[in-house]
């Protein structure tokens, strides 16, 4: 194994374990109350959704507006499974998550076929339509409650599950991007014609990107269903897709670390703004605009880079 890779992996795993222990301890000791714990779960779920959307939007470079649709499929399929069967949660839940992911993956594959012929705005319309089709189908499915909503879903999404799966999603995405398949996906974003001329089967890699992204959207949906315990097609509108897209854009197209950070901030922020009551969404939008401006401000960026490089130097000096 590559030495550098092993070092990176050790650092990553150590961060993951320490993060888990610290948060777990805070929950145990009651510092993080039930309300904050709910936010923490939503952070994990949004991280999964954002990172997975970043694969199609950031790395493959296609504007996809149907993420909420794939999430809905994962949510409903997994909920249907856990509600129909009564196995022990430890067996039932991972299977349900996996099934949710696979169902979304299949939907992602179906959508990717017409999507292969289109780019840019047209692809955005196709994915938007796909999301709406899924939502309207669910509205008319009586076994999952239709418009009335689907109730009585078991409360399986614990902090451990959400955290574990978010970590798996991040590591799998990072690993995909660092492989030859990831490079091929990025090459399509950079220049599709040149990628073809370099021997990259662009259709195949577009499908891989779409399907990978849809799978984790479904997984995120499954966690969401078993956290909320109530599903309604109205949750998975275009607004939801846009919300995830905003997280991707703010974190940076093609940056997994950025996605994690922005998903965290944008999940916590609306909760912090509750003090503004009626003006909450107004302030939220303002903060969003300010953050976007700050992100593209060269002076702020330089300041940030300087701080980061001095931190790195200190770190290097320690070694």
């Amino acid at each position, binding site marked *: 194994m590559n030495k550098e890779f092993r070092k990176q992996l050790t650092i990553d795993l150590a961060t993951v374990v320490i993060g888990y222990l610290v948060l777990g301890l805070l929950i145990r000791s009651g510092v993080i109350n039930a309300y904050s714990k709910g936010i923490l779960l939503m952070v994990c779920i949004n991280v999964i959704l954002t990172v997975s959307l970043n694969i199609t939007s950031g790395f493959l470079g296609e504007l996809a507006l149907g993420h909420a649709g794939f999430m809905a499929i994962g949510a409903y399929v997994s909920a249907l499974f856990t509600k129909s069967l009564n196995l022990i949660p430890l067996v039932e839940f991972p299977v349900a998550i996996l099934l949710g992911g696979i169902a979304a993956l299949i939907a992602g594959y179906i959508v990717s076929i017409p999507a292969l012929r289109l780019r840019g705005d047209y692809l955005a319309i196709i994915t938007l339509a796909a999301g709406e089709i899924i939502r309207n189908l669910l509205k008319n499915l009586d076994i999952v409650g239709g418009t009335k909503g689907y109730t009585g879903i078991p409360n399986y999404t614990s902090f451990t599950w959400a955290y574990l799966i978010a970590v798996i999603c991040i590591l799998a995405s990072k690993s995909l991007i660092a492989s030859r398949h990831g490079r091929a996906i990025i090459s399509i974003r950079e220049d599709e014609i*040149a990628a073809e001329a370099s021997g990259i089967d662009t259709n195949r890699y577009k499908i891989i990107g779409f399907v990978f992204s849809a799978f984790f959207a479904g997984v995120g949906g499954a966690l969401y269903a078993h956290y909320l315990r109530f599903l309604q097609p109205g949750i998975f509108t275009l607004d939801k897709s846009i919300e995830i897209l905003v997280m991707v854009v703010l974190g940076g197209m093609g940056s997994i670390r950025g996605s994690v950070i922005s998903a965290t901030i944008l999940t916590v922020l609306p909760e912090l703004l509750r003090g503004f009551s009626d003006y909450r969404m107004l302030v939220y939008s303002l903060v969003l605009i300010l953050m976007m401006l700050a992100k593209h401000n060269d002076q702020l960026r330089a300041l940030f880079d300087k701080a980061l490089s001095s931190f790195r130097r200190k770190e290097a000096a320690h070694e």
Partner: protein
Amino acid sequence: MSNVLEVRDLGINFGGLRAVDGLNIDVAPRQLYGLIGPNGAGKTTVFNMLTGVYEPSDGTIRLNGELLNGKKPHEIARMGISRTFQNIRLFRNLSVKENVLISLDTQVDYGLFSGIFKLPKSFKQEKAMEEEALELLKVFELDGYADTLACNLPYGKQRELEIVRALGTHPKLLLLDEPAAGMNPQETQNLMDAIQRLREKFAISVLLIEHDMKLVMGICEKITVINYGTLLACGTPQEIQNDPQVIKAYLGE
């Protein structure tokens, strides 16, 4: 010895326009072949047909005897025709090394599973790719720029990187579309030397489109001149330079 590339009666229609008509090209192994003609003569269209971007309306294209008609661009790239573009098409936001790694993808076969779970096979192949990428970059002394973003390279270096990337697919035939465009005389001279060096080192044939007559006449062993999509003349540089029709249509008195 049989030809690397055999093009017979090649033609293409764009609606009512006959852009290329009845063109024959034979490229021998290790031959440096020039394709010249006035602007709009259909040279790049020929390249696009050879690489599968356009499907010819009639005629055949064979690479070492294998029919290429109807094949997709990425399949043709894997079969052994590689190209550069008239207006540079690099993966601009990727490093110089990554640009080459993408075309070296044709040389490895580890699967998606192996890639995501980082199995030993993927490590071994990635390492070999990386070594070969640096080796290829040395052809144009670009190895010092390995971690520079492609868009930050000076113009001449970008053209060279495109050639290196094209070599990554291990081609039998290299198509260069105006490789010297925008280069100064010194850079053009270096490029001429480099093309000859490449041909020896990698034992490949080169088919190039170029308007710089010094380069074309200096290195090509055989030249085809086209005008309005049809053959005007074909022969050695001397024959072309003395052909009255070529002088009239393209070279000038």
